[in-house]
């Protein structure tokens, strides 16, 4: 059983905060909440909205139609009134199914005008037939303004006399965690033992920068914003060379500036985690909206040939786990870890209740340098043990082809030796990735939905509504190295394969074909900057497998 809530108003009106409070109040009672944030690229005056799906079962997507909407501005009402079955408005708005006189309430309670929002939350609680206790708890988030907001909420609850469609009480459910993809990635980096995070702000990667900056003293690492993305990537490699565990973060435009440095990662083999949060492209595109259109670029970024992990988690919990894996892989194999999210995963909030620990521990794993240390020693597995400079020996890292010491070379035999070393490493590393469950299978049907990244939530929500005996979801969490065997295994006996991607061209279909020769039967794509909902997937899949 689920209910969808739409909270809409002007940018700067505190929409995001109201939605968060509401969501938190539900998670406190054990509900699952998914929160989608929709906002244009401006600071104040435009329209924002949040779509919350609240359910007694796990949810990972929103819907485009709400059961209840709260409209905090006229513009919001006029623009979005069709997105809801029932509209609660404030005294500032003309129209709607039920109006809460927020100005009266704030006057009566002596609250500031902005607290009027909270009255509508009280009203919503009445509308679903719940007592306000969890809401009152969640309002603690307002700190010293908590009490006044509670008063306002209570008045809103009292004032509401509109229709009520009850949401079944969820008893006994353990309160879950309500977290965004960005926060999960930041915490994953902390769990993995990061020392330094370098970034230059870029939507939608910026929240990770903000969260990490906030927490840097508590966990004793540092966050440094540098002059641009090129500086960021090169500084990160410098820090990695010096022994630190580093991560950088950006969006597509910033990544495009880092191509040369990522290629340097390839030949210097310095551990590096690069976080990419995609948005609607090309170029500046539609900067606060989502898309998965950078994936082929990420898979192939950097001139020359070198191995990389392209890690594409599907929800917040996985984002945390996979971030730890990104650190694990780059430290253990000295390959580039590209950790990929998008606006939808980074900026949506998920409810997770169980938190299994990551599959691996990330370790710095530095060896002690010897007096005649070989930074690029040829080993059986192709991985040269890594040491940090400063205590013993002479450590080297270089953008040129080099010998085992890191000296520049140009002769054929040494080039071959070193390329072959890196090739061997790539194979060792591929085996390690295969052990990280790069492919997950949900359901058992013969109609396969194949996808990766942030579409996971909508597809899982759809799966719950589809005939699970006939549909199966194969989720890829790694696109490089491509988990060929596991994908082939998962697709064996498929009647149809449908690739789902938030893109124009459905790169996944080509990627699948390139690696397995398998052709998808259908593609479901969406490229208007908006993410899929469970409902959309249900409809499209039904049409496709009809």
């Amino acid at each position, binding site marked *: 059983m689920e209910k969808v809530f739409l909270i809409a108003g002007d940018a700067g009106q505190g929409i995001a905060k109201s939605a968060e409070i509401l969501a938190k109040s539900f*998670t406190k009672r054990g509900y699952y909440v998914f929160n989608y944030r929709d906002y244009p690229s401006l600071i104040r005056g435009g329209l924002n909205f949040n779509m919350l799906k609240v359910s007694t079962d796990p949810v990972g997507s929103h819907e485009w139609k709400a059961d209840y909407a709260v409209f905090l501005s006229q513009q919001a009402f006029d623009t979005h009134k069709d997105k809801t079955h029932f509209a609660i408005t404030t005294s500032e708005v003309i129209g709607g199914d039920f109006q809460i006189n927020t100005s009266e309430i704030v006057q009566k309670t002596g609250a500031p005008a902005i607290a009027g929002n909270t009255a509508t939350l009280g009203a919503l609680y009445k509308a679903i037939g719940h007592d306000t206790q969890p809401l009152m708890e969640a309002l603690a988030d307002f700190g010293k303004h908590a009490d006044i907001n509670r008063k306002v909420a209570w008045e809103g609850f009292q004032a509401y006399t509109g229709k009520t469609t009850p949401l079944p009480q969820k008893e006994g459910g353990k*309160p879950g*965690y309500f*977290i965004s993809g960005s926060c999960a990635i930041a915490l994953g980096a*902390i*769990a*993995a*033992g*990061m*020392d*330094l995070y*370098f970034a230059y702000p870029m939507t939608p990667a910026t929240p990770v920068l903000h969260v990490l900056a906030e927490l840097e003293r508590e966990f*004793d*690492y*540092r966050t*440094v914003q*540098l*002059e*641009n993305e*090129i*500086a960021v*990537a*090169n*500084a990160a*490699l*410098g*820090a*990695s*060379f*010096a*022994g*630190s*565990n*580093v991560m950088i973060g950006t969006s597509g435009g910033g990544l495009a500036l880092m191509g*040369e*440095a990522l290629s*340097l990662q390839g030949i210097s083999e310095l551990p590096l985690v690069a976080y990419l949060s995609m948005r609607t492209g090309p170029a500046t595109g539609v900067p606060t909206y989502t898309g998965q259109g950078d994936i082929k670029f990420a898979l192939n970024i950097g001139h020359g040939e070198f191995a990389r992990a392209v890690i594409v988690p599907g929800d917040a919990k996985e984002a*945390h*786990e996979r971030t730890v894996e990104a650190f694990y892989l780059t430290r253990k194999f000295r390959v580039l870890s590209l950790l990929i999210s998008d606006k939808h995963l980074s900026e949506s909030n998920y409810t997770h209740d169980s*938190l*299994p*620990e*990551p599959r691996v521990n990330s*370790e*710095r794993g*530095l060896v002690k340098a010897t007096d005649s240390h070989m930074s690029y020693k040829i080993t059986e597995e192709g991985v040269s043990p890594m040491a*940090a*400079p*400063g*205590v*013993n*020996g*002479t*450590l*080297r*890292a*270089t*953008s040129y082809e080099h010998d085992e010491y890191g*000296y*520049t070379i140009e002769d054929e035999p040494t080039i071959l030796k070193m390329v072959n070393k890196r090739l061997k490493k790539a194979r060792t590393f591929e085996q390690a990735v295969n052990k990280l469950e790069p492919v997950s299978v949900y359901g058992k049907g013969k109609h396969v939905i194949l996808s990766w990244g942030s579409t996971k939530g909508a597809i899982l929500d759809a799966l719950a509504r589809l005939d699970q005996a006939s549909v199966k979801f194969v989720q890829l969490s790694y696109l490089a190295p491509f988990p060929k065997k596991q994908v082939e295994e998962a697709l064996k006996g498929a009647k149809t394969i449908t690739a789902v991607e938030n893109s124009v061209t459905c790169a996944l279909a080509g990627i699948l074909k390139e690696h397995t020769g398998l052709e998808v039967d259908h593609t479901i794509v969406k490229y208007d900057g908006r993410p899929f909902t469970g409902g959309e997937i249900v409809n499209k899949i039904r049409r496709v497998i009809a």
Partner: protein
Amino acid sequence: MNANDFNTPVPNTWCPGCTNFMILAAVKKAMADLVNEGACKKEQFTCVAGIGCHAKIYDYFDINGFYGLHGRVPPVMAGIRLANPNLKVLGFSGDGDALAEGMAHFIHFCRYNLDATYLLHNNQIFALTTGQVTPTSEPGAVAKSTPHGSPFRPINPVVLALESGATFVAREYALDLQNLTATLKRAMKHKGAALVEILQPCITFKDVREFVKDKMYRIEPSDLEGALKNARSWNYTKEDSIRIPVGVFYETQYPTLEEKVGVKVWHEAYPERPQRSTEELWERFK
């Protein structure tokens, strides 16, 4: 310990007679002196090189080295220092490297007052790519990409460094081994962003050795205004009337970026970071 203790077995591929050999000698000597004076251990020296003839120096001394990308010396230096403030970082750039490709980083390096020594091998030419104009080439310079004369004016890196916040700024001549070594030592001992421009005539593409030698005169450090006046007195032109000031223009003290950020040798402070459970970390999102 002497300069030869920094030798490597790698064959040198600079043009025979290239003035870079003297810079190499001076750096090795300066490092040996610092070690002998107990100011620094050999293992602490870390070189960061750009791409160009100058950058080949990476192969020629036995110290930790990061042979990076064209133009990107300063951010690599920053990364190294923020990761390990015990390392003694020496950056090597050419005029193309630092002032064309890498101009943004050059300015911000000075602004950050990163505690590192930045050597700018200025030969007023892209040498390794066989001779094109750089931001310090004289007006009208004829080179392979400007056969009809350069349309550009030179820019003055000493002035830019002073204006951008470098706390030690000097210019030396590659072939004046003694002064070069002395100034490099001073720069390395300086806490903060130290820029040493080295006039390094390229004997193959732009041999101005005689010109530089004739025009050079030594200056003493002064306050910022005086330093700027000295620095502006030559703007990389080749008129007969000019004089070229060399020596230390300016030296001052200011907190470094590393101090302000508050860094440590992370991998020594935390050989391994404590493992933290997801539950512990996610607690705040309950």
